[in-house]
């Protein structure tokens, strides 16, 4: 489904990604973790070409992201993405947020888009808020709307870029619950997160990154059982002891 092949990226002289390679199969849930500045957010943004990279290639559902001939908007329309800071459109109501891309990008009718949007809104438990503006919702609620917005495009896979790290602690679970449910339904997911509880519960694999490199890429049981690299052991001991 997603195949990352020898991807390297530089900001000027500074190399943020060093020869990263991995595969994500259909229906697989892969958690990407690592210390801040390790390049994990950059890597996930490369998958839908929000960040360009200079070397290597990423192939999503058979389509090369690096190929200049690829129609990026069309590719992105099929790849759902959820951001750290939600990024709902503040000048639109929740319903408009859920329908704008469906109508303008996919060409669905307004009725069809609204119906679909409201169904997804109901699924994330926020049907009552359809006519509100994003600013009137809590962070956790906004993030759930953002997930519904991504799902409204019928994505073939979902990318999550630290979806809970901007949230107050009491709101983290409501968002994780939605993500767990999604994972159980068989959605292909690549999730950058520090939520190891989520990783233990639903991830198939865990990728650990450090200084732009994929240091560890292992089955969940192996990763939490006996991480091979010292860096990963240190990282786990730091975030699991709290």
């Amino acid at each position, binding site marked *: 489904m997603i195949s990352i092949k020898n991807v390297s990226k530089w900001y000027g002289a500074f190399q943020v990604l060093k020869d990263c390679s991995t595969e994500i199969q259909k229906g697989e849930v892969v958690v990407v973790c690592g210390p801040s500045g390790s390049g994990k957010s950059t890597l996930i*943004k490369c998958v*839908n070409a*929000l960040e360009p990279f200079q070397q290597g290639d990423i192939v999503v559902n058979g389509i090369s992201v690096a190929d200049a001939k690829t129609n*990026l*908007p*069309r590719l*992105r*329309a*099929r*790849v*759902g*993405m959820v*951001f750290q*800071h939600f*990024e*709902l*459109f*503040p*000048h639109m109501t929740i319903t408009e947020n859920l329908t*704008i*891309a469906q109508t*303008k*990008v*996919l060409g669905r009718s307004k009725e069809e888009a609204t119906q679909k949007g409201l169904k997804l809104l109901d699924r994330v438990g926020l049907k009552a808020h359809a006519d509100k503006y994003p600013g009137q919702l809590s962070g956790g609620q906004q993030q759930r709307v953002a997930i519904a*917005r*991504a799902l409204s*495009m019928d994505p073939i896979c979902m990318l999550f870029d630290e979806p809970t790290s901007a949230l107050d602690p009491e709101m983290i679970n409501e968002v994780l619950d939605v993500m767990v449910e999604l994972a159980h339904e068989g959605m292909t997911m690549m999730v950058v997160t520090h939520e190891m509880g989520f990783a233990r519960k639903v991830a198939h694999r865990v990728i650990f990154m450090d200084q732009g490199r994929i240091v560890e890429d292992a089955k969940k049981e192996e990763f939490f059982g006996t991480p091979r690299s010292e860096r990963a052991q240190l990282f786990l001991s730091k975030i699991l002891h709290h």
Partner: protein
Amino acid sequence: MYEYDWSSIPGALPYLWEGMKVSLEITFVAIVAGIVWGTLLAMMRLSNLGPLSWFAAGYVNLFRSVPLVMVLLWFFLIVPQFLRAVLGLDPTTDTRLASAMVGFALFEAAYYSEIIRAGIQSVPKGQVAAAYALGMTYGQAMRLVILPQAFRNMVPLLLTQAIILFQDTSLVYVSALADFFGAAYKVGERDGRLVELLLFAGAVYFVICYSASYVVKRLHQGNGS
């Protein structure tokens, strides 16, 4: 001691109103055309394409570094000849109003583009990323997501610029075009009551601009809360 005599004003009001209509027309056209052209300039300036960005930067810097009255004079001299050559107009056709509108629109676009550029940059980068991630093209992201938010942030500045523009329309007197100020001047000269007419014109500009500023201030406070 100067004896004030305001008696020539009531009779001149219809003529002054004609002048006011010219002022408002120029202001309106310059605002609309200036914002449209200014938005395009701002998008060029922010684009990654070197030549477009340089052209926009050069344009803005040129117009912001030249006095408005000089720009207007150029246009009074160039535009009529241009229109005559292109449209085959009669040399006696009055093109002063069209020249003034073109001159103001091009000049104001330089100022509007800077306001709009700042407005676009005030929208968080994540919004663009979110629009792209949903499959929007650059044009859709701009039109549906970025510009509506940018304009909302910019409304007070755009209106303030419009008020300045309205005052600046009085500079068309260099072409003897009868805008409100020009009309007042002509009446004053005709009746030998220049002081009264100019005081009256000043009072009218003051009332209009001050009221408009007040409205802008209220709008701004409404937004901020």
